[in-house]
């Protein structure tokens, strides 16, 4: 899922200090899982803002809410009245949600309340690790199920480089070398031979290098909305 972290309070206060009616809009999706933008975090931010306004002697009205997903306009529509009533909105959804909210309520000022980082996993309580860089053409089948793009600091397709040492990447002793992991897994699978063949240059057009990406799934466009979809 997408991983984000709350922005520093001072930064957020700086955005909204001249507004009085604030809507803090969270999202029940990924940012709830990584505890950056769910209801709990919306309340924490809301309380902090109230405290700030009170201490600064400013009139204020801070409302917190969340919706199922900020990346779906059907759910965003639920925010209509609350957004209209606010002078400014702080969205604590991921960067996608923040933008889609802005798109929907285009005459309203919307500020980001989180920093969105990457697609990753919950390694442990409070530890999130990147796993996929969304390259658009997955190579996991040939790399032992470990992504060389997200997990090698140089996104090498023919690693490990000469800086790999004791399982760690040259950038830091805290960063596992992705290629070390790939090699270990290939060995376990008895596929080390596949390692000796050079891998050709990658076509990055399907990655962000090709420009903003759009997926058009004609099969889905024709099909009836399924259970779990907001498009009902």
């Amino acid at each position: 899922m997408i991983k984000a972290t709350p922005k520093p309070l001072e930064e957020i206060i700086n955005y909204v200090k001249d507004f009085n009616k604030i809507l803090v809009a969270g999202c029940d999706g990924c940012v709830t899982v990584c505890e950056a933008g769910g209801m709990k975090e919306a309340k924490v931010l809301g309380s902090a803002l109230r405290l700030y306004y009170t201490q600064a002697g400013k009139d204020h009205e801070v409302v917190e809410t969340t919706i199922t997903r900020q990346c779906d306009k059907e759910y965003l529509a639920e925010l209509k009245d609350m957004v209209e009533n606010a002078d400014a909105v702080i969205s604590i959804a991921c960067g996608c949600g923040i933008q889609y909210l802005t798109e929907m309520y285009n005459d309203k000022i919307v500020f980001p309340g989180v920093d969105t980082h990457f697609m990753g996993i919950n390694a442990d309580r409070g530890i999130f690790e990147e796993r996929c860089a969304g390259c658009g053409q997955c190579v996991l089948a040939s790399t032992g199920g470990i992504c060389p793009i997200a997990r090698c600091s140089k996104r090498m397709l023919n690693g490990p480089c000469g800086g790999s040492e004791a399982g760690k990447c040259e950038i830091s002793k805290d960063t596992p070398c992705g290629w070390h992991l790939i090699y270990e897994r290939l060995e376990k699978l008895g596929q080390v031979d596949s390692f000796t063949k050079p891998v050709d240059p990658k076509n990055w057009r399907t990655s962000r290098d090709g420009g903003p990406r759009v997926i058009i799934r004609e099969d889905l466009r024709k099909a009836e909305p399924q259970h779990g979809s907001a498009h009902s």
Partner: protein
Amino acid sequence: MEPRTPSKLEKIMAAGHLGVTSEVGPPRGADGAEIEHKGHLIKDYVDAVNVTDNQTSVVRLCSLASCIRLKQMGIEPVLQMTTRDRNRIAMQSDILGAASFGIHNMLCLTGDHQTFGDHPMSANVFDLDSVQLIQTVKLMRDEGKLLSGFEMKVRPQIFIGAAENPFAGPNVELRALRLGKKIAAGAEFIQTQCIYNIPKFKEWMKIAVDKGYTDKAYIMAGITPFKSLGMARYMKTKVPGMDVPDNLIDRLKGVPKEKQAEEGIKMAIEMIQELKEVPGVRGFHIMAIEWEEKVPELVKGGGLYPRPQV
């Protein structure tokens, strides 16, 4: 192996001589004279001179311009190129530019991550990796094509080099396999990481010989003399992928500070002598970091002087 390019370095090794290269690190400023000065110090003692490409990700005068300077002084350059800072468009363009000046050797590298350098906040590129850069140069030279498939009228003539580090992780077998991969991609000479752990290097070389890699590429052993005990310790603990055994550190500890540089040179010469006898070693790459003036002594001491004329 028959020489395939006009490279003097290739001709020397193809004729069965041990090849000798060294390197010049360009300055962190626009002083082209410094490159010429360093070139002068070593030119009669080596067959070709590598010019590093923003080594350790520190911005320096560019490798290509430095190589052109050396070439104009009559020194044969080895253009080092990392894939860190330039995409395939820029790299192919630089290769053509180099070839247009008669630069006939390249060392294809991935490069250190920018975290190490003076611009850790920069974006990185890594459109290709070192293996793919080797493939690219080979495609341009042997098939006259760019990666796009475009056919060139005039092809670059480049003796294709790569680096390999026998001492990096995960283990020596994998490092030998990766050497094989670079050779399969088209590498014709290999300059190794600085060698200090000779038993491990021999282990790596043995795999390379057994797998037939040494029949397809010239392996040049990397030598870097220690200037001081401090430098040896730094190399051991701070440089990723560097393997400095304790007995070498102890040996430097055993001599007074003012004699350590001399001892470092002695140790490097002994290493050259020993490595000459290792099957598959076809030359030496002497990286005397900011100590270029010592290259003549090392080459002479190693019994590699005078350099053959081809």
